[in-house]
């Protein structure tokens, strides 16, 4: 920059960057704007832009003869989704599995989170944190493939069931919906533990003491003090487990023989080249999550994140 100004006067004037900085110093709002324009620009253009494109494509169609996208408004994609029962069945299945995974994760996560937040010594708590977080550092695919080995016929899970006398487990495990659900529950468990932990941790001990002083039994304290206070955190965690299951298509493909919404989107886009239908079907989980988030907001989940 300085090389661009070869002739310098004897009394050096402030350099260009210095002048700019002085000028900006008097305009804090502009400064903030300049700082935020890049991240928010990225968010607006890339994130909402792609959503807008998705939305537009959903109302276009594919010319089956030429394979070219016809850019004129049509509801044919949605018509196809409604008239062919297979798509409704796939949506139902995806939502059902997402709900099962969410409930199971909540049931497993709560005791762990409670122990971490209110019982464990600081040392043990740190250790538990590490154990909960460590799996997140491993590759998603590595974990799925590891689980394929675990649930395979005559795999370790099958073997464990045999030990306790259940001999027909291989007909349920292996490539199946049960295996898929187990893998989902494992995959998203940390996303449920951590918000619940944060929620439990925020409840002052004095509340529990007060509840006990007023004669409440532990069950009553749990139902009437802890649960209402931790509910927003629970809902926050469920947003993760539910939406991650809803959008996944790799676990169904690798561990089960079933199709999720994502598999149909993938096949429509990647195999049939029918991007409009893929876009239309992709709007289904977007819609489901929009409703879910509205309900979650009512329950105060966003204050708990």
């Amino acid at each position, binding site marked *: 920059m300085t090389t661009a100004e070869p002739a310098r006067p004897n009394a050096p004037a402030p350099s260009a960057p210095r002048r700019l900085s002085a000028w900006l110093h008097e305009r804090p709002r502009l400064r903030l704007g300049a700082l935020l324009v890049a991240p928010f620009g990225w968010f607006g253009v890339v994130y909402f832009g792609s959503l807008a*494109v998705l939305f537009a*494509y959903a109302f276009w169609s*594919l010319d*089956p*003869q*030429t*394979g*070219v*996208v016809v850019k004129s408004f049509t509801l044919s994609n949605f018509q196809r989704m409604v008239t*062919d029962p*297979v798509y409704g*069945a*796939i949506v139902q299945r995806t939502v059902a599995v997402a709900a099962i995974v969410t409930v199971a994760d909540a049931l497993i996560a709560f005791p762990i989170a409670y122990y971490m937040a209110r019982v464990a010594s*600081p040392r043990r*708590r*740190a250790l538990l*944190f590490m154990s909960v*977080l460590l799996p*997140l550092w491993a*590759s*998603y*695919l590595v974990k799925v493939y590891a689980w*394929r080995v675990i649930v*395979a*016929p*005559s*795999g370790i899970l099958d073997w464990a069931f045999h030990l306790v006398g259940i001999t027909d487990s291989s*007909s349920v495990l*292996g*490539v199946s919906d049960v295996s898929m659900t187990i893998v989902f529950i494992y995959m998203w468990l*940390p*996303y449920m533990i*951590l*918000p619940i*932990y*944060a929620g439990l*941790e*925020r409840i002052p001990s004095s509340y529990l003491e007060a509840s006990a002083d007023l004669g409440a039994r532990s069950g009553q304290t749990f139902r009437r003090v802890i649960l209402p206070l931790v509910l927003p955190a629970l809902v926050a965690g469920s947003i*993760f487990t539910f939406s*991650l299951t809803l959008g*996944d*298509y*790799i676990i169904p*493909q*690798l561990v089960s*023989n*079933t*199709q999720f919404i994502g598999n*149909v989107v*993938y*096949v*429509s*886009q*990647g*195999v*049939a*080249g*029918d*991007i409009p239908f893929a876009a239309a079907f992709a709007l289904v989980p977007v819609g489901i999550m929009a409703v879910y988030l509205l309900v979650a907001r009512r329950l105060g989940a966003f204050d708990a*994140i």
Partner: protein
Amino acid sequence: MVQRKGLAAIAVIAILAAACSSSATSPAASSAPASQVPASQAAASEAPASPPASETPVASIGPGEGELDLVAWVGYAEDGSNVKEYDWIHPFVAANPDCSKVVVKTADTSDEMYTLMSNGHGLYDGVSASGDASNRLIDRAEVAPVDPALFPDFKDLTPFLQSPANNTVNGFHYGISHGWGGNTLMYRTDKFAAPPTSWDSVFDPAKAAAYKGKITDYGGSIYIADAALYLKTQNPALGITDPYELTQEQFDAAVALLKAQHPFVGKYWTSFTDEIDNFTNGTSTIGTTWQYQTNTLKGSNVPVEAIVPTEGMTGWSDTWMLSRYAKHPNCMLKWMAWMVTPEVQAQVAEYFGEAPANPKACDILNTSTKPYAIKDFCTAYHVTDEAFYNAISFWKTPIRDCGDSRGNTCVPYDEWVAAYTGVKG
């Protein structure tokens, strides 16, 4: 308390970071089971839809551009990292120092290959396309015609593979034939007292029920043709002549057969590794396969055998094709010439388990001592047997035009895709 707050903060950050990273890994992760779809997909799907009326075939090979990017079937471009005896990439680079870097993207289905080529303009120089992708690539002007005189070994190719319909249109050669084979019926020999002889083992509900959950089907929609091929002999009243040219009635019958079979199917495999895993651990014991999986399984001492059922079989005949949008066309042309030399043809045929397009490979194959060598290879694979070749129903893209007196009454491919989604349920 301070420490607690810290932990809570860490927890929140971890959640956010993990949520972000997980949503970022999911699409990328799909590369293993499925495909890496380029970002430019939206724009690319609006490519021109027919090949130019008059073509100027590429008639010379210039100096290499330093790199070569391929879309290939598994086992078609090996560098010795899987089985060290099978390596034709390093020798290619040694022979062509001007193409020193070879990048291979393997695809699991023809549809995936087509999508990679049509969405990834400039990313890939060429593809090893089967007949159900090659004609689509030609029709949609994705691949360039070449002068076969560019390839010194062209004249040695089996005569019926020099200008087959799956790569030669209007007299223009859109690539060079690579090899061919059939989709056989594989089964675990330890689970079957009597070896199966017919596709009815998987399609006839009465027989299939015995192996409920152990049957595996191919996960690509072209598999509807396998059902149609079975119906061709099983239900002559339907009058199926070609399993890829199905009228609505014939198509519905094939789809109904697959839907009836659905409860017995344990896995629709799309990734060849899936099928290898499932046959190894016993999830699957019978189903359609490529010779590659059979060879690999036998190589790891899994008791499997593959047969040609009495109804015949579907199959593939593959072509190396040059993309019109290739960034390294000269390297691709050099690769195409390389792939039909007898030495390389012998390697790939033996490794993948298919009939080489160039019968001159037979001398090498018949005396091979490599791990996958089999006795009298070229007899076993019917390399020059035109009658056998003609008996295979080779993969091709179903289009509305039946190609015969029935006219435009056949079910086009996009309906195959939609119907197969319905089959899988």
